[in-house]
């Protein structure tokens, strides 16, 4: 009897537990986010830490963002030129590149690149501090670890993501000009005119809103995974940190792409 009841209800129980754990973690993450946002403005001492984080997240990512932007722009210019010139519509090259870059590709690709470059480093840094009990030491010294570690990273992400997205946009438009106009011979005037006329303020604004939201998502998920790395069941110590870093990157990428779909349907 007991055996049978367990057999019937076990999957139900498992589902319940998984659901409850997910809801629990989401709630914890949201409180974590609010805490970080609130503590961004906790005194002038935050400023120098923010500068250090902007240097790491923003300045040191410029070269990789420029490179990715250049190549994705170049490949877009080439592919769309071939696709459009089949219909004799290569005058629309600028429109196609500008629309897809500014609205979609620039925010998403730069957020994913930044997850790989800065997000994983954030998780690893905070995770190592957690397992070597440095975070506990901070708490004992009456230094709020959220204020000291997470809030400056959040501020840096909020600032760096839109700026890097703007760089990505400009460089990718230049890259597709290189291949589409200089290499394949589309009309230069038509290219720049259609880039300019096809975009309006809603497109540019939407791209920046996306990048800011991606910044918040990436920073929250990556810091959260590192901060609670010691609560991972089954993996303690260095193995736990490596697991946290992996899951932070995976979750961030999934969150970016899912949020991108939702934001696109909301914004336009």
């Amino acid at each position, binding site marked *: 009897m007991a055996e049978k009841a367990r057999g019937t209800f076990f999957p139900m129980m498992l589902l319940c537990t998984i659901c409850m754990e997910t809801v629990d973690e989401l709630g914890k993450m949201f409180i974590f986010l609010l805490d970080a946002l609130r503590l961004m403005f906790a005194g002038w001492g935050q400023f120098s830490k923010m*500068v250090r984080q902007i*240097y790491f997240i923003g300045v040191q990512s410029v070269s990789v963002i420029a490179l990715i932007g250049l190549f994705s722009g170049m490949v877009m210019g080439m592919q769309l030129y071939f696709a459009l010139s089949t219909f004799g519509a290569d005058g629309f090259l600028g429109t196609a590149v500008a629309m897809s870059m500014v609205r979609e590709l620039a925010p998403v690709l730069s957020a994913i690149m930044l997850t790989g470059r800065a997000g994983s480093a954030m998780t690893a840094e905070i995770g190592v501090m957690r397992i070597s009990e440095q975070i506990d030491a901070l708490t004992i010294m009456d230094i709020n670890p959220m204020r000291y570690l997470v809030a400056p990273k959040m501020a840096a992400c909020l600032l760096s993501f*839109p*700026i*890097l997205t*703007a760089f990505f946009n*400009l460089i990718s438009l230049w890259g597709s000009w290189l291949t589409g106009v200089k290499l394949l011979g589309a009309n230069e005037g038509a290219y720049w005119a259609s880039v300019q006329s096809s*975009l309006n303020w809603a497109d*540019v604004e939407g791209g920046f809103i996306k990048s800011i939201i991606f910044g918040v998502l990436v920073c929250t998920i990556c810091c959260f995974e590192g901060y609670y790395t010691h609560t991972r069941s089954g993996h303690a110590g260095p193995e736990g940190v490596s697991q946290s870093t992996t899951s932070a990157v995976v979750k961030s990428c999934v969150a970016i792409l899912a949020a991108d779909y939702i934001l696109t349907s909301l914004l336009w």
Partner: protein
Amino acid sequence: MLKLRKETAVGLFVLVGLLAIIYMSIKLGNVQLFTDKYYPVRANFTDIAGLKVNAPVQMYGVSIGFVSDISLDQELNVARVDMMIEKEVKLMDDAIVSVKTSGLIGDKYLKIDPGGLGDPVNPGDTLFDSQPAIDLEDLISKFAFGKV
């Protein structure tokens, strides 16, 4: 090798970044910071066939302004189009406004023939001479059913 201080690098990053954002908003986002370059003119049409706000207004093929608002006037049974025209461009009140299409499947735009004999148009005036968009399907059906 020259090594930038962290603070200088961050300052440079933020400064150049903000410039890039401003450049993008103004050049690509077409934000009008100084709208007093334009004056408003209005025209009524019986059919605008999908003309959009921000569509260009052209004279002899040169862009001289844009469509700022489109609304429905149910008393006169017309579509009311508000345009912003550059201040240097003078219009007479016998100007002819027409809805045109760039290419066969291109976007709609407004074409103004400036006129010459009338009085100058003041800001906010209505241009009375307007031509509706040519409806391609209408033309084809007229041709097909022999009403040409």
